[in-house]
């Protein structure tokens, strides 16, 4: 009998195939089939949901509480909507210390308040010890659409902007589970992307928050929405030297490390510099950069190409399996 594997939830190709082959056909309808980060409902509403099972629940730079609010807010922001309401469902493992639970609830409250989002409904369940890993959280978010993404308007020459240095959440979590005797001081980049909302009225065509699977996966997803290849310059990708050191020691490709407070934005060619300036004015956008563009001279439709620092080209594929350190 076929069994569900961990890989199916990893955010990579296996998960996307599962969604495409099992979930979509089962629940197919006109709203779902559009497959945006949020669903667009009548009445100019955007609606999204996400579940949070992160281990460990406390990590440098955040915890499952900050994550479960920022993650869902960000899904609404990159869909062109201002987040307004959240639902909060808690599944708590019997035996979780109250002190830890309170810390998490405080994080949720603080993060929601900071972003003017109200938690208006919720649910609490407790499962017997051993049947849930300390705490799982689901949040669903409702927002008001300011402007819908317009991927159909994307054309060659349009620029790709990354709003900040990549990979920090993924690495922080990896090292929090096993530090591999490394000291890097890397903190998760978990953060809300509300400061990007004004860009929708200023010409931004498409956005996606970079989460599991990293920048390379999001670039691959973009190629599925447009008719042109993408070309990214490795030298322009913002990355902290701490992170670069850590990934080269462990042998991990940073383009696949998760972020939780970064977005990829497609900006029209003539507005890219202006949009970049706006992003960089915000504390969370200081390391933003134009990393590449939509192409029509190199590559084929459906390809995300990276030009390395050395000048050679390589193809970026979506994440296929869990990132592991290597020695070779």
């Amino acid at each position: 009998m076929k069994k569900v594997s961990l890989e199916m939830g990893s955010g990579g190709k296996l998960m996307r195939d599962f969604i495409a082959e099992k979930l979509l056909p089962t629940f197919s309808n006109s709203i779902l089939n559009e497959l945006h980060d949020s669903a667009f409902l009548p009445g100019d509403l955007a609606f999204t949901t996400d579940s949070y099972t992160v281990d460990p629940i406390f990590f440098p730079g955040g915890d499952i509480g900050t994550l479960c609010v920022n993650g869902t807010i960000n899904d609404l922001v990159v869909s062109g909507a201002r987040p307004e309401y959240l639902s909060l469902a808690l599944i708590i493992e019997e035996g979780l210390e109250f002190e830890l639970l309170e810390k998490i609830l405080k994080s949720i409250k603080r993060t929601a308040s900071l972003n003017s989002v109200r938690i208006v409904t919720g649910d609490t369940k407790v499962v017997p010890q051993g049947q849930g890993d300390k705490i799982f959280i689901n949040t669903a978010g409702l927002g008001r659409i300011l402007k819908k993404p317009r991927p159909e308007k994307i054309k060659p020459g349009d620029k790709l902007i990354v709003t900040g240095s990549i990979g920090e959440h993924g690495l922080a979590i990896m090292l929090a589970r096993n530090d591999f005797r490394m000291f890097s001081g890397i903190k998760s980049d978990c953060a809300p992307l509300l400061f990007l909302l004004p860009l929708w009225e200023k010409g931004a065509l498409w956005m996606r928050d970079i989460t599991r699977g990293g920048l390379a996966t999001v670039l691959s997803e973009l190629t599925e929405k447009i008719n042109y290849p993408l070309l990214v310059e490795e030298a322009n990708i913002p990355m902290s030297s701490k992170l670069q050191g850590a990934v080269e020691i462990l042998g991990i490709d940073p383009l696949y490390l998760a972020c939780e407070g970064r977005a990829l934005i497609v900006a029209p060619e003539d507005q890219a510099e202006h949009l970049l300036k706006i992003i960089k004015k915000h504390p969370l956008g200081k390391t933003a950069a134009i990393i590449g563009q939509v192409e029509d001279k190199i590559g084929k439709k459906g390809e995300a190409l990276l030009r390395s620092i050395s000048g050679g080209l390589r193809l970026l594929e979506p994440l296929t399996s869990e990132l592991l350190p290597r020695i070779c």
Partner: protein
Amino acid sequence: MCLAIPGKVISLEGNGTGKVKYLGSTVLANFSLIPDLKVGDWVIVHAGFAISKLDQKEARRTLKLFKEMEKLSAIE
């Protein structure tokens, strides 16, 4: 089979180990395969073991070679 990085020894921790810094990250490495390491030496670290000390004179010589590359191509 050879993934390793050139890092700077920033401390000796006793017990044959020390800390090596590479591009802003630090890793604890075993120094038993390289005797007489000092703070400030550069080493190659593979799977948590320092396996070689970097010869800085040689490194500089190779870098100089890159600068003179055009002359080399012309001679050929």
